[in-house]
């Protein structure tokens, strides 16, 4: 304590101005700007006005003022601050608690006047370094700012080009929409006669098929008659019929005489003519029993055609798959039934093919085929036009999205769009795709982890474009979804300079780009603004 008292109450501040040295006396720790409040010989009033004390209590190592203003040069007040002039560097205020704490805080060593700490005056060196770094920074800023102007220019150009393109696309779109409508009409007009002709063709084929079927049935009936007529007497009798228990109408295992008579329409025996009516009631069972082949299909070809179309969408008909060629094209699955029917005439593959090779539908006649071809062309044209419209639409959307992005006040960040920048660390490769996503991939195997998708600009209110935020990345065990904060600093080049993970799953990336370079003040201004002298 006694040492403290021995030390000068006043510090001598060397002030260099306009090349002349001036000594200005003021209490230790008081900045020039407050010198007038500390007048020797006069009582001192705390700067908050709370009380007035004799001047010898200023810097007497006891805190009298609530605001700490009576002890600018000692550590007595908990809320005081000490001013170091730091000639050659920049002046600074430090908390009073750092006075004589054994740690050199002021580069001019004035904070450690009674602690035994040996401090070196480093202000000149620091000043030099700062000037150098400011110079370097100014250089970078200047060049960066020039690059930024270029970026703005390019972005403007790009934006204009995009606008032009968008307009173009929009007019193309309009044209395409009209075209699509026109072709839709053409298609519908062409499909009308096609449908009729096909129906006609189908109906004729139905009739022809029915005829063939009836003939076949007759032939079978005759065969059956001959077979049932064991004694070849030209009649089928009750006894003869009874030897075929499989014809049992109630399927109870025994074909009684009464049942047999019933089958014969009450007669004891029937001739070929009368057998026609018997046949109709027994042929189901008879054919089932006597033929290894399945019974003749009862479906109409029209139904078959519909089934054919639908069975590609479902597995209700697995047997069809089994029977089909292996090289069947998968991409037909989405086609609608009509198309299917058109592209693949029923002759190529129908279920009946298995049992009825001869029963395939004949090709369309020339006239029908002509109508089908014409309709198909109309459909193709329509599809193509629609596809083109979709494409244009997509392009418009992506352009609008790009144009809609907030690329900064002068779109200076637009050049980052659809680019990616990587940084390789010892373990990982980090990848920043601005306005899109951030990811991390282990260098030595392992899959990529999503560290966040573009969220928003997240800088402080006065400088919102200084920080990008990416969030909703891959989730963490017991933790949040990964997110990344990207801090942008001015640089000539566009590079990711560092990445870190300050908290689990919260990443921090430093990224330099000319786009954030501010117009540099003149060097003089920069230096002057930072030093008192």
């Amino acid at each position: 304590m006694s040492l403290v008292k021995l030390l000068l109450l006043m510090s001598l501040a060397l002030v260099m101005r306009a090349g002349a040295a001036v000594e200005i006396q003021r209490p230790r720790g008081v900045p020039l700007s407050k010198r007038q409040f500390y007048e020797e010989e006069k009582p001192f009033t705390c700067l908050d006005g709370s009380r007035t004390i004799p001047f010898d209590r200023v810097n007497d190592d006891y805190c009298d003022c609530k605001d700490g203003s009576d002890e600018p040069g000692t550590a007595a007040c908990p809320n005081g601050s000490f001013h170091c002039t730091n000639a050659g560097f920049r002046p600074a205020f430090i908390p009073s608690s750092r006075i004589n704490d054994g740690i050199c805080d002021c580069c001019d060593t004035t904070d450690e006047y009674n602690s035994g700490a040996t401090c070196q005056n480093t202000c000149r060196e620091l000043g030099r370094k700062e000037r150098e770094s400011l110079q370097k920074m100014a250089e970078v800023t200047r060049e960066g700012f020039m690059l930024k102007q270029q970026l703005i220019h390019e972005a403007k150009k790009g934006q204009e080009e995009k606008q032009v393109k968008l307009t173009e696309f929009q007019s193309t779109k309009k044209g395409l929409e009209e075209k699509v409508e026109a072709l839709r009409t053409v298609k519908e007009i062409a499909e009308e006669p096609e449908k009729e002709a096909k129906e006609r063709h189908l109906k004729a084929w139905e009739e022809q098929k029915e005829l063939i079927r009836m003939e076949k049935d007759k032939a079978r009936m005759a065969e059956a008659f001959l077979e049932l007529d064991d004694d070849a007497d030209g009649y089928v009798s009750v006894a003869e019929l009874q030897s075929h228990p499989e014809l049992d109408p109630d399927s109870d295992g025994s074909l009684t005489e009464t049942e047999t008579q019933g089958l014969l329409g009450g007669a004891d025996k029937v001739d070929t003519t009368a057998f026609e009516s018997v046949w109709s009631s027994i042929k189901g069972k008879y054919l089932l029993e006597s033929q290894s082949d399945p019974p003749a299909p009862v479906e109409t070809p029209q139904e078959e055609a519909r089934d054919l179309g639908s069975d590609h969408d479902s597995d209700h008909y697995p047997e069809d798959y089994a029977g089909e060629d292996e090289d069947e094209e998968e991409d037909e699955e989405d086609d609608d039934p009509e198309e299917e029917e058109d592209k693949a005439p029923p002759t190529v593959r129908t279920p009946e093919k298995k049992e009825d090779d001869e029963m395939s539908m004949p090709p369309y006649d020339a006239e029908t085929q002509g109508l089908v071809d014409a309709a198909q062309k109309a459909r193709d044209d329509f599809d193509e036009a629609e596809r083109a419209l979709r494409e244009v639409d997509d392009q418009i959307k992506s352009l609008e999205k790009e144009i809609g992005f907030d690329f900064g006040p002068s779109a200076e960040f637009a050049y980052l769009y659809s680019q990616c920048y990587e940084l390789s660390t010892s373990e990982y490769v980090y990848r920043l795709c601005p306005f899109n996503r951030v990811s991390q991939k282990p260098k030595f195997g392992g899959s990529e982890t999503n560290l966040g998708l573009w969220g928003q600009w997240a800088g402080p209110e006065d400088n919102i474009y200084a920080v990008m935020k990416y969030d909703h990345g891959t989730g963490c065990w017991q933790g949040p979804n990964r997110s990344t904060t990207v801090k942008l600093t001015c640089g000539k080049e566009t590079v990711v300079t560092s990445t870190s993970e300050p908290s689990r799953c919260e990443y921090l990336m430093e990224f330099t780009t000319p786009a954030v370079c501010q117009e540099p003040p003149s060097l003089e201004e920069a230096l002057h603004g930072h030093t008192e002298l």
Partner: protein
Amino acid sequence: DIIPFFHRMYLQLTLVLSISLGIIQAVDRSNFKTCEQSAFCSRQRALRPGQSSYRALLDTLELSDSRLTLQLLNNNNKVRLLLELYRLQGNITRVKINELKPIKPRYEVPDVLITDPPTEPMSVVAQDERGVVLSLGGVDRRLYVNAQPFRLDIMEGPKLVLSINSRGLLAFEQLRMRKDTNDQKDTEEAGKKEDTEKIEDKASEGEEQEMEVDQPGMWEETFKSHVDSKPNGPSSISLDFSLPGVEHVYGIPEHADSLRLKNTDGGDPYRLYNLDVFQYELFNPMALYGAVPVLLSHNTHRTTGLFWLNAAETWVDISSGQVGLCGRTDGSGEVPQTDVRWISESGIIDVFIMLGPRPADVFSQYASLTGTQAFPPLSSLAYHQSRWNYNDQEDVAAVDRGFDEHDIPYDFIWLDIEHTDGKRYFTWDKNNFPQPKDMLQGLMDKRRKMVTIVDPHIKVDSSYKIHSEIRSRGYYVKNKDGGDYEGWCWPGNAGYPDFTNPEMRTWWASMFAYDQYEGSMENLYTWNDMNEPSVFNGPEVTMLKDALHGPWEHRDVHNLYGLYVQMATAEGQIRRSGGLERPFVLSRSFFAGSQRYGAVWTGDNSAEWGHLKMSIPMCLSLGLVGISFCGADVGGFFKTPGTELLVRWYQAGAYQPFFRAHAHLDTPRREPWLFGPDNTALIREAVRQRYALLPYWYLQFYQAHRTGQPVMRPLWVEYPEDVTTFTIDDGYLIGRDLLVHPVTDEGSRGVTVYLPGNGEVWYDVHTFQRHDGALHLHIPVTMSTIPVFQRGGSIICRKNRIRRSSSCMENDPFTLYVALDPQGNAEGELYVDDGHTFKHETDRQFIHRRLRFTSNTLSSSDLSPDSQFPTASWVEKVVILGAQEPKAVTLTSSGGGESSVEFEFDPVTLVLTLRKPDVNAGVDWTLQLQ
């Protein structure tokens, strides 16, 4: 930190499982045994109170000057036990029971008692065929040995203080040969076996042979997939103690439970078995990381202690209720009684009965057995900033800067396991910590320090020096077949050094030498985590019980392992400084005696209000059994605290002995300045209050070191006759003079604080408002309120110039807070030394002064005239609470003559402030108020 990493790996391997399980929220109880699942506990607990099968064979009695021996006979199996009784200095009785002739030695716990306890003569006062009466000194302290059934009663005059085996629960499973060696499959499913034991006794008294029947789990036990081979068979022991007139018992940490122990009837007993419990639950008797088998009982007349010196798995049953006054027929009703029963898996019965009678006596008695709290470096009582993990040197530098930028003091920054090269302790990650000395020098320049973690599991890697040395020296714990035991922990496959081996400990200590621990410097200290030991793939996340430490099974030594790790580490720190510097080592696991080696914390708690509240009874319980340097992770380890909880935790932690913020790897950052300026200010203020009080904390630790009195005390310790205090564990005392009642409820607008002491007064340390004692005080609180009261009659020294670190405050002046009692008196002490060496001990370099205010005179007098220490600190201010306005104040100092001192008096608050007495803290002085 504990096993979440393991969980993470595991869950990644079994993704499907993780999806179905979701996030694991709390302790998985199925990982840990209940008494029922622990074969010996279940066997012992099946034994019900009743007539003891033991009788004392009085004709075998031998009495030397200080030792009485007597054989006990088990009437059922005729196995004889040897009872030893000692009267120890300081009103302690030691009772030892071992087999008279065990077929092999049974484990007796070494290294816990600081010396062979000095004895005092005992004499036989009376003897007949029913028993013996021994004098335990004093006028009328007697020990009654009842022969049949065997029972010990300690009497003081006509009053029964304590009975042993009064419920007949003495049970001693004698070591035996395995009879049926062919049948190796003695699993729990195998059920009961034929009785093949002690055939020679069958003829005589064969009516009850139950204990002789091989019971399930005697020769092998399986828990989950882990098999305990039990080559020595059953070996458990049990004894009961009855405490008449006692309703309140405390101690036997570590449990996340209330300060006052609960009745365990109908539930599980309190368990003592050091375990790494993932996300532990509150309010249950499950075992945690440490174990101190010491139980205190208290009523308005007497405090006693039971110290059960056994390091094996132990269960403690507590049963309290009312019993009829024995032998009384006058209908005077019933008195409360608490019965305590101890059950241990192996070893011997060795119990110290500390007879008090005052709480302070019990603390001294226990300290005389196991030693006192290590006197920590002053800086370790300041604030510690930790996190799993600070990622790299730049991160450390940035956090360090952050504290300065926000003007928050701190002394230690901590590095968790990620700082190492692949979890190889004593190494540094080459990428993230390439220049550890630069980093440490940077901290030293700010007069700050660092702690790195050094865990006792050693990565099995032949290119890792520590491992290959331990292996080649044969220092690893062995498995039952003699090979090195290996288990899974942070580094993957790991060996566990046998810390019970003194050679191993010496070698381990040598690894902390500056030239061995590369990159270490004198401001680097150590944290021992996972020293239960934690083994991720072991039974109950610890070591197999049949692993071998030399001749002993892990079963015998388990609860000692953590103590030994901290012991060896602290020794290493002392040695690296040539015996000059005090060590600082934090340990998660502990045992009786661990107080001699450093600090402990309450392990992996959670960021929940309940855990904040629980930190108080947990540390109070530890303080009662000697371990004063206790704290909880501020903010909570698992999960993320809300801002209010974080602030409240800082406020509470600032008033607990060990003050460290710590956080799990997977939680967001929570350095104090990340929650907006208002919260930063609140946290800054809490930390600054801690720093201002460091002289008081330091004094408390000096006292704890000298006397064994706890630093953090339940109210009943100082107010033993006030029954209101007996169950309070939301408020407590620091030393005698500060009462703290932290806010631990979310959204709290007020707290009700019990201020004890009829006729006493307490002063709010912030407002200086005076309150009367022996009443419940409701005080409204805001976010900035930390309810703390100074006892009227005390003097507390503070340093109010808060700086970057405690070292920076070394030479700063003191402000004395003199809180007058209703009679206008106050008393306190001041202790000053260099803060970090042993010179206070070796060279008597310290200042210890008595401060006394009486008859309007405040004086400082030397309490230790034969010691000296030069200090630059002086007295800058004296604040007298409850004062009257003086006319003048005169200072007289030795060699300084007389001078007048200015003062200010506030007639509203009755606070008298003496301005700048300006007298050195180390000299005699008086301040006379006229």
